[in-house]
């Protein structure tokens, strides 16, 4: 057995790939000794995200069945391309755009989620296995984190948050419009209205619990005492922020569900149950 002389012998060149199998570390062949089902969360995350990506890609490129009066799919809102009648509440400035109108606006919510601090954790683990779980060795030889292109672009998250606030306002407006019937008369409500309402609440909870939001409203300050209102706002956002991951999941499901519901309505698979 060696003694504490190991301290002196630790300085030596190591291969760049050396991780838990490196020459100075305890010689243990297993990449992890965890006995719990550590693979379950990244696997479930991968499957759900992958399913969402497939569905969202199909719907974004599909270009049809996104409006069933008075409901507009959140994937196509605001509808700025060559949209069907009634779907364009903000005009059609990109009418000449040859592809699906969803592709014009979807980059903003997509970019917001792609650069989100929670989603980053989730997909770095589930898709890139970096690491797959805590204290489970990752398969990559080299690692530079978010210091280089393209991952250094994750720092634009706050700009996508600004856009997400605008998208949130537009989706809220869509919910207001959903309190009409097919003849544009106000004071009506159907199951679609309820689903859109739940969705927009979850979207707002997700958007307002964002880490960049927390920073912008007050987190960037060094003296809360000089900014009592911003301190209160920061405290509120901080409470929401602890549940950011939950809101990320709930709103992901709700936005897909609302789109699916409107898709099925528009495709005449069933009629919208009207409450009043």
């Amino acid at each position: 057995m060696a003694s504490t002389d190991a301290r002196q012998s630790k300085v030596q060149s190591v291969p760049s790939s050396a991780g838990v199998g490196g020459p100075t570390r305890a010689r243990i062949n297993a990449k992890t000794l965890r006995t719990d089902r550590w693979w379950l969360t990244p696997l479930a995350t991968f499957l759900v995200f992958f399913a969402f990506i497939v569905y969202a890609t199909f719907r974004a490129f599909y270009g049809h069945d996104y409006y069933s009066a008075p409901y507009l799919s959140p994937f196509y809102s605001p509808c700025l391309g060559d949209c069907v009648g009634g779907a364009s509440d903000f005009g059609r400035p990109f009418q000449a755009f040859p592809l699906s109108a969803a592709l014009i606006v979807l980059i903003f919510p997509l970019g917001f989620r792609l650069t989100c601090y929670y989603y980053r954790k989730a997909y770095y683990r589930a898709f890139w296995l970096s690491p797959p779980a805590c204290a489970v060795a990752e398969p990559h030889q080299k690692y530079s984190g978010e210091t280089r292109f393209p991952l250094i672009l994750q720092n634009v998250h706050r700009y996508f948050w600004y856009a997400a606030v605008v998208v949130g306002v537009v989706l809220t407006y869509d919910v207001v419009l959903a309190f009409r019937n097919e003849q544009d008369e106000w004071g009506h409500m159907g199951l679609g209205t309820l689903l859109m309402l739940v969705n927009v609440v979850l979207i707002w909870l997700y958007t307002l619990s964002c880490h960049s939001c927390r920073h912008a409203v007050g987190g960037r300050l060094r003296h809360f005492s000089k900014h009592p209102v911003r301190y209160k706002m920061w405290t509120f956002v901080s409470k929401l922020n602890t549940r950011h991951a939950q809101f990320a999941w709930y709103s992901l499901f709700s936005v897909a569900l609302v789109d699916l519901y409107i898709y099925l309505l528009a495709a005449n698979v069933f009629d919208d149950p009207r409450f009043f």
Partner: protein
Amino acid sequence: MGYDLKMRVWRGDQSGGELGDYTVEVSEGEVVLDALHRVQATQAGDLAIRWNCKAGKCGSCSAEINGKPRLLCMTRLSDFEESETITVTPMRTFPVIRDLVTDVSYNYEKAKELPYFEPPPRDSDGKRRMAQIDVERGQEFRKCIECFLCQNTCHVVRDHEDNKPAFAGPRFFLRYAELDMHPLDTHDRRELAQGAAGLGMCNITKCCTEVCPEGIKITDNAIIPMKERVADKKFDPLVWLGSKIGIRNKDNDGRTEV
């Protein structure tokens, strides 16, 4: 009510080692460190363990139990089935010295690289003043016991030895954040945090938070706020423009970059 616990404990040094099998009698209410001490007392007198307070406050007995980075003294045997074999290894990110003892001097080297707190001149009455709510924010970070479990579990250095020179690790991002949020500190460490300390290497996969025995929200309350502060300084053209035309808040005035 005692029972016989099966343990596998890593024995060895940098020249090699293996998991040794031990069966030891344990009692209700004991922790893993108690079981190891009994192994040491009855079967393996030369078993090396670093420990001190047995109360989760000194941060000495960090190790990996069934592959999870944990404190030996804070891991209850009642968390496991009586029939379960408990495997204990040293932290796998740091050079092993012997058995469960590792050389954690990497962390002390990183601590030396971090510029210290620099207060402003005293007020005319010889005092310095801070408001209570400004002080409270950093209190969570002061709970750190420097067990280095977060440093150990961070894949940036755990899986990539070559990153050690360029990466300070979560424990020190905590310190960067604490000082950056400090109402009196006059150093601006944002460039340093991103550059020399390697904040950009962190991909916020939150393992540091998961293993922290003090429950400090390292990622949400320190690393991400610090990343946002760095983005203010380095990556946000609107903040830059605001500072040029004088519409930024004056909260960072009086700080000098280090």
